């Protein structure tokens, strides 16, 4: 279920509506997450008066994990919008208002027009401001490459429950399975190496080479979706220790509980970083000498079977 709040008023309570239809909820989340640049944690501090955006609360933990969003996220519209698609996605959110829904606190004064019409009109005004703002900025700077390459798809993936005992209880299992085994959630007892299973192991400890090996084994880069037949499709992250001296790679896997698990070599699987904090973001976690973040990938069943 989703709870959507239109962040538009200053004095009176903001309109709130809920969406319970599962298919509609998932379609909406797909639209929201197709362009991550649209979403922020909260209203941008520069937001002023008028239609500022939508606060979207995901009321199911599983849904939040499926789409890789926090329990609450924010879609800014108008001049603070993250992209021109903001108004289009905002329109979709407004369209989910059902006649007769209790939109606001009971003691709030009524609007002169139906809420849906009112919000659509206000959203149109905000979009006009947004396009004016972009037109004035267009000549100043091209969008960053990363933004231009933002993915337009959302993949359905799986998350495994954090189960360290599977890796830690038997010393032989613990010693003979490494971070790549853990990321793949597949015990080979061979200290698996990216690319060894497909016959083309990495030839250097660099993001490019370890990535090449993992993709050769069957992994995909994030947003390059796998079909359902490849379940389980885990979200994993690759990092590299570049040296000088210490050169190695390391993997993390996102867990059902929302944090990330990992297994440093032959040591115990865990969900905490070098500062002993639970890992909620592998990009910002304390990773010791593994200072280069290479990116996110999806594992899959074929890759599990192939790794050696």
């Amino acid at each position: 279920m989703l709870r959507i709040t239109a962040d538009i008023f200053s004095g009176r309570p903001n309109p709130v509506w809920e969406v319970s239809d599962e298919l509609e909820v998932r379609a909406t989340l797909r639209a929201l997450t197709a362009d991550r640049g649209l979403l922020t944690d909260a209203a941008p501090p520069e937001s002023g008066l008028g239609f500022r955006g939508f606060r979207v609360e995901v009321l199911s933990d599983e849904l939040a994990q499926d789409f890789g969003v926090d329990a609450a996220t924010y879609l800014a519209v108008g001049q603070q919008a993250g992209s021109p698609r903001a108004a289009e996605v905002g329109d979709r959110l407004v369209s989910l208002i059902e006649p007769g829904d209790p939109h606001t606190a009971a003691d709030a004064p009524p609007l002169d027009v139906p809420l849906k019409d009112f919000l659509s009109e206000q959203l149109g005004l905000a979009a006009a401001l947004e396009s004016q703002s972009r037109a004035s900025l267009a000549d100043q700077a091209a969008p960053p490459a990363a933004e231009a390459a933002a993915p337009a798809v959302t993949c359905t993936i799986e998350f495994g429950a954090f189960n360290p005992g599977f890796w830690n209880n038997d010393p032989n299992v613990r010693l003979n399975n490494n971070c790549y085994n853990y990321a793949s959630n597949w015990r080979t007892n061979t200290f698996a190496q990216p690319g060894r299973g497909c016959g083309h192991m990495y030839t250097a400890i660099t993001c490019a080479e370890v990535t090449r090996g993992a993709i050769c084994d069957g992994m995909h880069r994030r947003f390059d979706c796998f079909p359902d037949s490849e379940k389980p499709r885990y979200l994993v992250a690759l990092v590299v220790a570049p040296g000088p001296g210490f050169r190695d790679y390391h993997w993390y896997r996102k867990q059902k509980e929302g944090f990330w698990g990992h297994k440093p070599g032959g040591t115990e699987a865990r969900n905490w970083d070098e500062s002993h904090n639970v890992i909620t973001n592998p990009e910002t976690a304390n990773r010791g000498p593994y200072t280069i973040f290479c990116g996110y990938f999806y594992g899959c069943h074929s890759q599990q079977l192939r790794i050696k």
Partner: protein
Amino acid sequence: MDVEVDLYSGRPNPRFHLGPATAAELMHRLAALPPLSGRATPRATLGYRGLRVDAGVIESTITEIVVSGGAVFVCDRAGTQRVLEDRERGLERWLVEAGAGQLDPNEVAVLDQDLKS
């Protein structure tokens, strides 16, 4: 007797071999270590953690020795573990020196740096 340097997360750890005389010296040094007072566990950080000695080949009762951060964990065939004190990481330092010639110089530099800290 083989020694594994517990260093990497993804790559296979480097190993070196101790000849009979050096292995005997290791057991002699081990016998001289006092028990550690208090609790200890092997280091579990990312990066260099310690040395794991596969003692099962030549020693009749000891199966594994882990030398890590000032403590030595000795496992025997009965499954019991003794924890000894490695003052100023002396045994760890001696083992690294014993194996340095068989390791990549970059790896030796990492171990030396860690032992200085």
